[in-house]
């Protein structure tokens, strides 16, 4: 990369153009600073203050907010629910979207049609689709109760404290498969075809060819799909907000919805900030773990 850049930028021209990268970086960097990096630091500081937005009074309270919130069953339940939702959806989304991408990629024709079909749920506005899903989960006569319910006895998912979160997860997976699938398809279209032919000539079966040729080449796609799916799972809000509003009995309350309730609805800024900080910690820990486990494939993808 370095050699390539040096070769492509003649030495005598480089010095007077030192200002160019700064010029190119500044617009985006400004927005990222103002709307990501600075708020990120502020949110952690805000957890230490009692801020009354209406009177605009601010008072340092140290760790008292944390004391109050960390022991609150609401935050604990929301954290557990959020993690559980991620555990229920992320493997399903990444696994099924990989299978879908492999299947669609293997089709000699109609691939484009199925790709579109699988992507449609991603595009369909979740707030609107929640209406349809509430109908499907409608107690007694809904499609879920009259099929799965009749077979297994598990009925009225949305009003059950044990089944409401899985129901939310089913909807999230349905909507999330499309974007991961497209990322995998993009990765698949770049797998060198000659490697597959060489493998076939060497007598490697489909499983061997997948494991030794396709899967390594899909590394960056997998990392990207995994990280985006995890981020989207940890911030789940839309279908919770429209379908269950956190209920029944808080069994579908997620961190994003709880933060909205504290921060926006009750204007309890200290508590809202703590929920934010917990969410931030959760995102960073999960993504860092995936990043390390993934052998830093995402970054290497760019660094050549």
């Amino acid at each position: 990369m370095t050699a390539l850049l040096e070769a492509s930028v003649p030495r005598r021209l480089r010095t007077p153009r030192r200002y160019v990268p700064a010029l190119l970086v500044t617009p985006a960097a400004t927005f990222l600073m103002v709307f990501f990096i600075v708020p990120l630091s502020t949110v952690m500081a805000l957890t230490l203050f009692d801020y009354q937005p209406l009177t605009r009074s601010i008072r340092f309270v140290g760790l008292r907010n944390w004391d109050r919130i960390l022991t609150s069953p609401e935050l604990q339940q929301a954290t557990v629910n959020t993690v559980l939702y991620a555990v229920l959806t992320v493997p399903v989304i990444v696994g099924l979207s990989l299978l879908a991408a492999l299947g669609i990629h293997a089709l000699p024709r109609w691939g484009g049609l199925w790709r579109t079909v699988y992507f449609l749920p991603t595009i369909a506005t979740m707030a609107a689709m929640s209406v349809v899903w509430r109908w499907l989960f409608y107690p007694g006569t809904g499609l879920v109760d009259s099929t799965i319910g009749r077979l297994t006895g598990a009925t009225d998912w949305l009003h059950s404290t044990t089944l409401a979160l899985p129901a939310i997860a089913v909807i999230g997976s349905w909507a999330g498969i499309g974007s991961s699938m497209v990322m995998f398809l993009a990765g698949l279209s770049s797998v060198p075809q000659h490697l597959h032919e060489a493998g076939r000539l060497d007598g490697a079966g489909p499983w061997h060819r997948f494991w030794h040729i396709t899967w390594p080449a899909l590394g960056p796609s997998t990392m990207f799909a995994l990280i985006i799916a995890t981020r989207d799972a940890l911030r789940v809000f839309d279908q919770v907000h429209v379908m269950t509003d956190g209920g029944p009995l808080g069994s579908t309350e997620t961190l994003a919805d709880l933060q909205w309730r504290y921060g926006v609805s009750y204007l309890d800024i200290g508590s809202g900030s703590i929920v934010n900080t917990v969410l931030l910690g959760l995102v960073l820990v999960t993504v860092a773990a995936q990043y390390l486990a993934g052998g830093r494939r995402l970054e290497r993808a760019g660094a050549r």
Partner: protein
Amino acid sequence: MNTTIRRRIGVHTAVAAGGVIMLGPLVLMLAGTFLVGNPLNGDLTPHLTLDHVRDAWAALDWPRVYGTSVLVTGAIFLAQVVTSLPIAYALARWEFRGRTLTFKLVLVCLVIPVQVTAIPIYFLLSDLGLLDSYSALILPSIGSGFCIYLFRQFILAIPASMFDAARLDGVGPVAMLWRVVLPHVRPALVAAGVFSVVSHWNDLYWPSVVLTTDHVATVPYAVAGVSGPDSTVPLSVQLAVAALAALPLLVCFLLVQRHLVRGLVLTADGE
């Protein structure tokens, strides 16, 4: 040969079966919208009606809601392109101090959900008197780690000879952006556009934070107002509202979907 054909049929069947599940809710939504009957009892009759659509159209100020969503998502994407392309070009093709750090920060912004930074941004907007306005919906989404990452990957894949040839033709380092980068990243623009427009058009969270009235309500915000958990609107009409909300984006996607996969470069060597 026989096994190949059999395997192909198997794969196609599996893909089609999955496709039916993916399409199912959308088809049912249209059935509930256009068929006479009470969907709650499951007794939909095969008679078409436009009554639900008419009621759904009357339930919301649709032209205004559509207009707001088009304006907001369009402005966000345009601003994302204008700010992301230069930084992506710099990250991919220029060597400068802090490049690695800048790229790391971009990756951090890529994974941080907006929920985490919502409260400080809310107060910032409130101090600037921007709550409940177009700016409140647009400004926080302009800096996009996703777009920057996507564009950077794509620019890395442009052959260096293209830049060299342009340089010999006397194209300056900044003009390179629209003379070389822009023509080559068109597929990436489509991909970024689909992801950006879809996520911002559909987003319910951010409007719920910064909006207090309905005057700049976006589509999901308006729909959530009609069809929350305690809504008294009949289900067929709610389904029609859902259809009116989802269809414009679905139709737009059908027009650009061919270019979607080509525009994503997620390979190990950026090629």
